């Protein structure tokens, strides 16, 4: 009897025992969702999701204290109420349409196993110390994980935690259960659950992380296990992805993120290690990495004020993060910036395309959270923090962060995170994945504004009067598309609706990047529509008056008495030159609103320093994927 009880006790301490049992997923839920629901003729609405969420099987998230797993994450994302690790009720105002749970592949489940392991089996002295710290208190547990991340950045992870053969075996059971769980929550037409993981390459602490996202159900994803990233090369990830596609007939893509913490390595002009980039390398990169996560809790990567000195809206979500790499073991210098931000990367892509005939950085844009609480909270009024140590509590805004402690990164530098919008014909794995693949996506810093654009050569303002969506698709390309130069200036139909439950819109801008006649990369911002544009805010000396600011700092509130509910533009590039390589993306900017820090101050009665209060009012925004204008083949100087 005692033995039976011991076995029962032992069983409850092991990942895998008891989980994975439950109702079975139907046939439609198990696959990629093709032929399961009726699809719209054209993508008819943006579907909202988070492609970057960690749960208790991430080695760091568990150590930070999270005790919610993938099932809680799925329930929360589809709108149900769950109890957060620290005991608060958590629920989204509006459910998400899709979710990629992206737990770290390195040592997946290992902290959970380490925590659950009988102490006597933990032989490595470092691991044994972390084991004890995790059991001691939440604070000690967070300290253990900070040590672990630094160790990872310095390549000093104990062998027992990272041996790939061991890890693959340990991960196998966990992954098999996990992909079966995802199928059970995947409901074509209602909610899409993607299999995925985070691949955390981090040479010297420079962030080269990718989220890997699968299109398929468990029959295919169950044939592989997540691929470890530490100490790898990005080409090895692409090898893994190609092998997956070849062996299973499935599809997979990778999403780089936090280029802002890469110290210039995410978007280099060369291949890794300074060797010249080949066309082959560029082709593989562009093929496997069609979208980039441009904004998330750990800062915004659109552009930096030093890169875009003439852009008055540059610098959103840059403070704190710009100081250095992920664990702040190495500081950033200005020469690193072009390789760390997406606008400069898009420009580099044009230059490389001219040289190689292939653009390695022709990517679309999305936002996501990178939350480590199993809770995808992108809303300022409902922010559950980067990790469990900073779930809502009075001290979290002003404390130094766990990464780069006392180096100048504070709680208030965290953004509430972003979301990904995908234009699709229906809510299935296939439809949303394919939208990512063709880059028909956009990033938001949290609000759900509806942003749509079409580019062509013969659009006119009267196209708005008819079925302009059909017109857009049949006579042009949507966001993420390519236009081949015909000798005429491209024309854009751009439509923006405010978040129906959120703030009004300040303005809509087109960001153009191009290579000029001297081969120099250039960028320019065009204001194409804004609120009250023919009235009080008519241009004065070429500049648009600021929209104003209704934010009541003390009450964390604002009013929609300024700004517009919707903006539309029919815009023709006034600076078009025949044969020019260019990209165009839309940046949509809301009126000023309070950030999560002000909601915290009100809720907990905090007294914040003036500079923190002023940094806690922001103009949230959306970034569309670009449209590229490419020279007709003979006009190119490359070897296409």
């Amino acid at each position, binding site marked *: 009897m005692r033995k039976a009880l011991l076995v029962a006790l032992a069983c409850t301490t092991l990942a895998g025992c008891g989980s994975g049992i439950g109702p079975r997923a139907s046939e439609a839920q198990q696959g990629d969702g093709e032929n399961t629901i009726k699809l719209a003729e054209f993508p008819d609405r943006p579907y909202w999701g988070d492609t970057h969420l960690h749960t208790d099987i991430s080695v760091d998230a568990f150590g930070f204290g999270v005790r919610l797993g993938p099932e809680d994450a799925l329930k929360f994302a589809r709108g149900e109420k769950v109890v957060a690790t620290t005991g608060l009720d958590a629920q989204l105002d509006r459910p998400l349409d899709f979710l990629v749970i992206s737990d770290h592949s390195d040592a997946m489940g290992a902290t959970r196993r380490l925590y659950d392991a009988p102490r006597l*089996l933990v032989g490595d002295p470092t691991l044994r110390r972390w084991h004890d710290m995790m059991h001691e208190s939440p604070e000690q547990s967070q300290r253990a994980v900070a040590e672990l991340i630094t160790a990872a950045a310095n390549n000093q992870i104990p062998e027992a935690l990272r041996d790939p053969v061991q890890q693959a075996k340990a991960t196998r059971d966990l992954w098999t259960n996990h992909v079966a769980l995802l199928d059970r929550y995947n409901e074509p037409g209602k909610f899409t659950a993607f299999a995925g993981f985070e691949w955390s390459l981090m040479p010297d602490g420079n962030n080269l992380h990718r989220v890997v996202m699968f299109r398929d159900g468990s029959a295919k994803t169950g044939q592989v296990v997540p691929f470890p990233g530490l100490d790898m090369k990005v080409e090895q990830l692409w090898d893994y992805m190609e092998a997956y596609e070849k062996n299973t007939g499935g599809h997979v893509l990778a999403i780089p993120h936090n280029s802002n913490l890469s110290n210039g390595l995410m978007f280099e002009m060369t291949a890794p290690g300074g060797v010249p980039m080949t066309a082959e390398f560029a082709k593989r990169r562009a093929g496997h990495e069609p979208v980039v996560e441009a904004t998330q809790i750990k800062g915004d990567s659109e552009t930096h004020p030093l890169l875009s000195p003439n852009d008055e809206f540059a610098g959103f979500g840059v403070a704190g993060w710009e100081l250095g790499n992920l664990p702040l073991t190495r500081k950033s210098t200005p020469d690193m910036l072009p390789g760390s931000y997406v606008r400069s990367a898009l420009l580099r892509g044009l230059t490389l395309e001219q040289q190689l005939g292939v653009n390695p950085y022709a990517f679309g844009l999305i936002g996501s959270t990178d939350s480590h609480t199993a809770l995808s909270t992108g809303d300022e009024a409902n922010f559950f923090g980067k990790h469990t140590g900073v779930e809502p509590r009075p001290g979290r805004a002003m404390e130094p962060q766990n990464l780069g402690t006392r180096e100048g990164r504070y709680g208030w530098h965290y953004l509430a995170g972003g979301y990904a919008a995908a234009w699709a014909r229906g809510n299935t794995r296939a439809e949303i994945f394919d939208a990512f693949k063709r880059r028909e996506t956009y990033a938001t810093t949290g609000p759900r504004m509806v942003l749509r654009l079409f580019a062509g050569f013969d659009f006119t303002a009267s196209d708005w009067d008819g079925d302009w969506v059909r017109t857009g698709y049949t006579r042009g390309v949507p966001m993420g598309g390519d236009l081949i130069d015909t000798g005429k200036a491209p024309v854009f139909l751009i439509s923006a609706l405010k978040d129906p439950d959120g703030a009004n819109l300040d303005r809509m801008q087109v960001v153009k990047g191009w290579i000029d006649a001297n081969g120099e990369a250039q960028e320019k911002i065009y204001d194409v529509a804004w609120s009250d544009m023919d009235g009080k805010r008519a241009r004065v000396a070429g500049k648009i008056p600021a929209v104003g600011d209704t934010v009541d700092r003390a009450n964390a509130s604002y009013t929609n008495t300024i700004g517009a509910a919707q903006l539309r533009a029919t815009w023709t590039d006034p600076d078009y030159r025949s044969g020019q390589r260019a990209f165009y993306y839309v940046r949509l900017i809301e009126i000023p609103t309070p950030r999560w820090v002000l909601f915290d101050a009100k809720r907990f009665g905090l007294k914040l320093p003036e500079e923190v209060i002023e940094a806690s009012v922001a103009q949230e925004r959306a970034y569309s994927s670009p449209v590229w204008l490419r020279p007709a083949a003979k006009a190119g100087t490359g070897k296409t």
Partner: protein
Amino acid sequence: MIRGWLREPLVHFLLAGAAIYVLIGWFGNPYGPTDRTIVIDAGRKAEIAAGFERMMGRAPTDSELDGLVKRWLREEVLYREGLRLGLDADDPVVRRRLATKMDELAAASAETAGVSDATLENWLETHPERFVDGGTVSLDQAWYASEETARAALASGRVVGNPISLPRSVEAMPRAEMREVFGLQFAEELAKLAPAPDWQGPIPSGFGWHLVRLRARDVGSVPPLAEIRQQVEADWRSETIVERRERAYRVLRDAYSVRQP
């Protein structure tokens, strides 16, 4: 009746507890402060080896097993001496670990138990609000930037609206989607209108003002179990786990009297 009782996890839980109690009474507490015999039999060694294999993914070599057994013995000796000295009493880690294990023991059977249709039917009947589909609406709408222009349009009988990138007409749109597209305020205001063939309103939304022709509204219903069995089962299971933990706790808790002077 008896069969039902036998399947009841709470009964398993209590029986297991009673059995331990009896065994301890019979043989003395195996870890009791007075017991100075440690038996390392084949079963114990197999357990240690299995633990190693779970962590490392392979069986231990003979010398590794030897080392593990020595380490186990060392820990066992110190563990018993620790108990003898009462060191477990005020250790928060030990406390939390044991409490967690008791909780998981109570929940384990609910995680794996099969469940009958009758149980789920009953669950569905007693918790209909969790499974009701939200219903649909069919409507036409015309948007106006201001309330006055909307009212004037309604009075004139010519309802055209200002241009906006919102659907002019929707057919049997799920209400959850309607709320997503038109926003919360619109959804709440729409709920106050009754379906009618004529234009009504204006009602406010996050975008401005709308005249609405609410052609049809289906308030939604609870689908039959066959259609949503999986969802009902998942809900029943997660709820039951929590409930069994709580019930198991109450039984134990009731045996204590707690005073807070």
